[in-house]
């Protein structure tokens, strides 16, 4: 099977992270796994780049973080979507839908009659 890969647009990773957190808190690895599963390997991201993006979201107040102890007795940092982050996600989604609808309309257009 041919693998189509899409280079992630600048800032798109942030939206993916926000989306992944919309069902509840996750740690960084959990977010990476979710993106992997949902995108079914169609989106190739360098896993490490997830973390600067996460920290940036935190500095912007879109996500909050807390340290918890895992079952294996390890310190795990998990992230939660803040109210502000939820609003941001909503705005980004509607923006994306408008954008993709517009692109789709353009690409599906028939040859114009002269």
């Amino acid at each position, binding site marked *: 099977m041919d693998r189509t890969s899409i280079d992630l647009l600048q800032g798109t990773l942030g939206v993916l992270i926000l989306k992944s957190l919309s069902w509840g808190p996750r740690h960084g690895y959990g977010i*990476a796994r979710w993106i992997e599963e949902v995108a079914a390997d169609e989106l190739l991201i360098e*896993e*490490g*780049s997830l973390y*600067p993006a996460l920290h940036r979201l*935190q*500095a912007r107040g879109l996500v909050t973080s807390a340290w918890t102890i895992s079952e294996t007795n*390890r310190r795990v940092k998990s992230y939660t979507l803040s109210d502000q982050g939820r609003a941001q996600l909503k705005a980004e989604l509607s923006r994306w839908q408008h954008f993709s609808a517009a692109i789709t309309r353009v690409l599906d257009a028939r040859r114009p009659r002269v």
Partner: protein
Amino acid sequence: MSGDPIKHQLFPPDIGRDVDDELAFHLEMRTQELESAGVPSSAARDAAERRFGDATRIARECRAIDERWHREQRRASMLADLRHDLAYAVRLLARAPSFTIVAAITLALGIGATTAIFTLANWALLRPVPGVSHPQELQQVWAGQRGNGFRPAFVSYPNFADMTQRLKTIRLAGTQDATVNVATGREPARSMPAAFVSGSYFDLLGVRFQAGRPFSQQDDNPSAATLVAVLGERSARLLFGSPEAALNAALLVNGVRLTIVGVTTAGFRGVDRINTKELWMPGSAQPAVNHYPPSMRLTDRGSGAFYQFTARLNHGGTWPQAEAELTSVAAWLAAEHPKENSRYHTAVGFHLMGPIGSNALGRERTATMLRLMLGVSALVLLIACSNVASLLMMRGIGRSGEVAIRSALGAGRLRLLRQHLTEGAVLWTLGGIAALFIVWVLMRTANGIALLGQRGGTAEGVPVDGRVVLFAMAVSLLAGILFSIVPALRAIRGGTSLALRQNGPSSTRHSLRAGTALTVVQLALSLTLAVGALLLAATVRQLSRVDVGFDPRGLYTFSVRPGSVGYTPAQAAIYRDEFVRQLSLVPGVQNVSVSIRAPFVQSVLTTRVKVDGKKEPLEPNATEVLSAGYFKTLGIPLRRGREFQPDDLGAAGDAARPVVVVSEALARALFGDADPVGRTIEFATMGRVGKSFEIIGVVGDVRINSLVGAPEPMVYEPAALTVPVRPDGTFIIRTAPGADIAGAVQRIAASLDAALPIVQPMRMEEAIGRARAEWDVLSRLLTTLAGVAGVLAVVGLYGVVAFGVASRRREFGIRLALGAAPARVVALVVRRTALIACLALLLGGAGATALARLLESRLVGVTPFDPFIWSGAALILLAGAALASWIPARRAVSVDVTRSLRTL
């Protein structure tokens, strides 16, 4: 990681460790997953790392993001706290407007006094001279002999050219001050402060021009001077309407036609703030403008052009280097031209005289005076601040409930302290802003030169600049925080339990004790100031009664300079005679006399006098007399012999006889008790050396310049000792009491020659008053400040006593109910005040001793420990204290017994 910002402040998270843990967890989880999918464990770790990317770079990036975020959060939380404290403080102060207003006014007085003095110091000493570029690179260089004062030695053009060539670390521009007659041909001539400057002057100072150009080296050519002038912006507007109109216009300076080639930028008034200039001419124009005889040529090495210079340090040079270079240049000049420059061998040299901006000799005096004034105003500030501090303390007692509630609700001690300090800072800043406003209004109308007790050029408002604002705000904030520390600590002390438990008396007593201590300090400081003010007032009184040796009442004086517009001596004599004739016709004029200088108006001329047989010459002051009746007009008593007769003075163009009149002090110094009349002395002034003169009379001693010290010995010589006579003259006129002849003098001058203005017209009492100006200023200032201090201290004492009475109301009520006589209750209150007053007397006595010692050098006719003044000041303090305790004591007795008992 987010969460409580305060917790972050106290326990900053370990960002590096957090990031490392987070990333390590990810790699581990991935490795585990790969292993469980069947990848061998060694390959699994590698694969995980590959998928992750550059872990070091990512960790670094995360750390940077987190660190920036934490910094922002910390700053935000601090700002939020400050904003909260400020809002709270403003709310509290707004809730008690009368307290706030009283406190702010008190503080405005204290801060205002200090800021006003600082504004003066800033103007006179700190601010750069306006219109000059990089004034900090400039210093004054004077040529001459330093010692008691300064004896100038003029530098000739050839010497100046050599100096300019040999000096490597500095560049020099010469200046020679002059007061000249200026006319445009359209209006009457006027007298104008001017300076002759070397061609390098404007370039060296970096002066910008409103119109036209600065002088060039060609303009300043000693063998062929160009007759050009540069005018100040204000004078250009005054004389010609605009700077552009002044350009290329002709200006008659001392009757000589100069062409205006430039008009300087508005701010520039020369390098001296106090003796400002309006007109500049090339130094080489001196012979033409000053009407030198043809024998005096600036190209001669032995002649003179300048003794004051402005020096600019070249890049990389230092002032010590410059000083060494100046010394070696002086030595070189003496060695190269021994005949003309022999004087550079001796004590004469080139001296660095400090920064530009004011007369080098006067600056030290101004600085000392300003330091003294600043110190005194700081005392007033101290009183005002402690006054408000004790107000705050009493308010703190009223707020103990609020503090208790707040700390019960979890506000930490530190937080409460900060809140109180913020309140103080806000209150003091309020006072500071009010003070700045007062100072601004004061300085807009003030004449800085007069405020410093000096005489000088044009008076303008003293600028209130950024440095002054900064000073006022810094003083306010610092004093605000400092003086609210104690009230704040007192207010929050004990915290919850104590304040809630007790309802007053004990904490009241604590605060009362602190308030009492502050009151003692305030009263002591005002006693100190009162002693200082009284000492200076006594000095001024003494100075105004000093016997000057002549009768200044009704004396009027002015000068004319016919020589300055080209009169020959003979023409000048005719002019003077006609002026005297017309003056004597003016109603109210009793006597007119003409000489070269008048006491307290013109500068002093020193001479050398020797009696044959005695070795040591004396150096008395001299006055050149032009017309008979000098002593009669001034009212100087004749002790022995006779006055000058017209024959002695060389009437009708003849040379005067070699005769002199001496003062009693000089006669005593020369001959002891023997009769000096008929004896001869050897006498040298103004280059006339060594002739024998017969003493024809002895007159009483007079003061001619200073009101302090013993009158100096004087010799009076005929002005016409050599023919031709100097063409200038100073008129001294005795008028009937109440007669005003100023208008008549101006009318006569205009009718005789409109191109010849009169110079320095003034009443003699005014001239003598100027010699007192410095004391006047200091005395007035100290009296004002002492008054302010006294009122503040008495109000402070009243506050403490009244508060004490109020808090002991119940006790007094009980005492009265149990039959105590009202007088006993009054005694209780008064005893307390008396104790405060006694402590203040002791402490203030110590302070006054220090101030009196500081003032000692400025006291005249009064000793620093004058018993009358000291007891007077003590009486004022006691009277103030009595007044402050009388009203509260009355209230103590009028306590309503039943009501005070009911609140028990």
